[in-house]
């Protein structure tokens, strides 16, 4: 009680203090904004302006229109496909794992180890990840050799190739589904016991409970996280670069080549390519946060 009284006497005074110094209060955040503008917003903005300029610096839409040439469309299409595949597969697998350790009834140690491992694996991307898969499933990898000696089977003769679309997808999954596990587990834990009991009391079976109650509640969260996974693999460069050495023309790989030396023979086109990438990322992050807000209606 004394605390509340104290707070009440203090807050008007403090508010007045803050109002009196209002213009000075903004000074406190200027270093942050100067930094953000100098090293984030300005660089991004320069790519935007570059996309609308020709070599002489005049305004043009040619670069944006130039994105429709087959080579660039193919790069976007490849990036989109690999992001879709790894978002959907990684999302489903991550969901099933999260389900298994939260409401699936597995012992506590399974849950704890999965969470720790997911924290590590979702951070374990890039060059080391690519090499781990090369050492395991590459042409002379551990598993490849094991299959050969145990079953006399050369997995590369069955059409498998680590340095291809399928192989890269398999590698991306390593950081994709742990992210799903991390984000979806709290949502699964937020499903209230009462809902299941109420449904069972009304005669619902397990399928009906999932179909009409649990999944509709989880759907925004599931979709939102899959959208986040999509963005996560769409912007990835290092893993693909280290695994395929740039032979798969993802958008990020093309941008990388363009930075090294104008491979598109048009700097403006390179900037437009990067702009397109930012647009895709912005849409996916916006979609994710929109879906998360819908989720909070039920799971809070």
């Amino acid at each position, binding site marked *: 009680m004394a605390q509340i009284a104290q707070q009440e006497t203090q807050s008007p005074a403090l508010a007045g203090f803050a109002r009196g110094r209002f213009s000075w209060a903004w000074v406190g955040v200027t270093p942050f904004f100067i930094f953000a503008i100098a090293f984030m917003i300005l660089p991004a903005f320069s790519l935007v302006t*570059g996309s609308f300029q020709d070599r002489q610096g005049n305004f043009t839409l040619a670069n944006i229109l130039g994105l429709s040439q087959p080579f660039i469309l193919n790069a976007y299409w490849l990036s989109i496909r690999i992001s879709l595949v790894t978002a959907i597969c990684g999302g489903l*697998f991550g969901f099933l794992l999260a389900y298994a350790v939260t409401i699936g009834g597995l012992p506590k140690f399974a849950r704890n180890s999965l*969470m720790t491992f997911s*924290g590590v694996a979702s951070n374990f991307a890039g060059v*080391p990840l690519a090499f781990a898969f090369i050492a395991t499933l590459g042409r002379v990898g551990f*598993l490849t050799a094991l299959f050969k000696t145990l079953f006399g089977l050369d997995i590369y003769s069955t059409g498998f190739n680590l340095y291809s679309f399928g192989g890269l997808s398999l590698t991306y999954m390593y950081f994709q589904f742990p992210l799903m596990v991390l984000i979806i*587990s709290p949502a699964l834990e937020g499903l209230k016991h009462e809902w299941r009991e109420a449904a069972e009391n009304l005669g619902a079976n397990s399928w009906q409970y999932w179909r009409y109650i649990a999944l509709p509640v989880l759907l925004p969260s599931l979709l939102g996280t899959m959208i986040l996974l999509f963005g996560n693999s769409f912007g*990835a460069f290092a893993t693909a670069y280290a695994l395929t050495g740039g032979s798969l023309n993802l958008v990020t790989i093309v941008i990388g080549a363009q930075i090294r030396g104008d491979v598109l023979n048009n700097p403006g086109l390179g900037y437009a390519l990067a702009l397109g990438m*930012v647009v895709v990322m912005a849409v996916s992050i916006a979609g994710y946060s929109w879906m998360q807000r819908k989720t909070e209606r039920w799971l809070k």
Partner: protein
Amino acid sequence: MRKAGFWAWLWIILGAIYFLLPLIGTFMFSLRARRDTLSFAAYSSAFSDPQFIESFGFSALMAGLTIIVSLVLIVPTAYWVQLRLPRLRPVIELVTLLPFVIPAIVLVFGLIRIYSRPPLALTGNAFTTNILLIAGYTVLSMPYMYRAVDTGLRAIDIRTLTEAAQSLGAGWPTIVIHVIFPNIRTALLSGAFLTFAIVIGELVLANFLARPAFAPYLALLIQNRAYEPAALTIVSFALTWVCIGLIQILGRGRTDQDRAFTGPT
């Protein structure tokens, strides 16, 4: 809680296999540097390469500087916004999420476009390029650092602490350094470990700014050697594990959603 069913076990076993196989594969691979015998030769050979020591030292130094820069930048800002400018919070949150929208490859493209020509030619020599590199790393780690700091600040009563310090005659620098920093040190440490993990593993910025960091070194090593990169892959996995493990030990009691993950690399 129901009894675990067949499916729950199946999924977790599949998950464990998928998680562990690449690690086992890499580890087995790293032991085969000598013909017909298992040995740690690849490790000693990888560690004794002067280029490894140089690049790893460089990355560790950059990580340390990045941690300092982002702490100096983010702690006072988050503190100030919470204390005086709560209306600004959504704006700051949006800005700290921007690195998710701007992938590293696009960020470095923009940085090179702006800072490789007058009036701000920073890419001209190694020292100023390092500054640019640290700024880039700070941007990449910003979402995590900001969230860690913000969560830490929300857990303490900064208003009362500030007033208590002020009534004892403390100025702003004293308050931030001697009152706020110690009170959120677990949050700061989590942010610092995560930043360390990000910087050590980061390839894109260092590669395109042509700085001798650890990830570009490893990428080059993969093309030329077989067993040493396997050893270093195991080492970097262990490092990531240590960083994340420390964060989880520090962050016990926090919700799962606050757990760390880094963006695409």
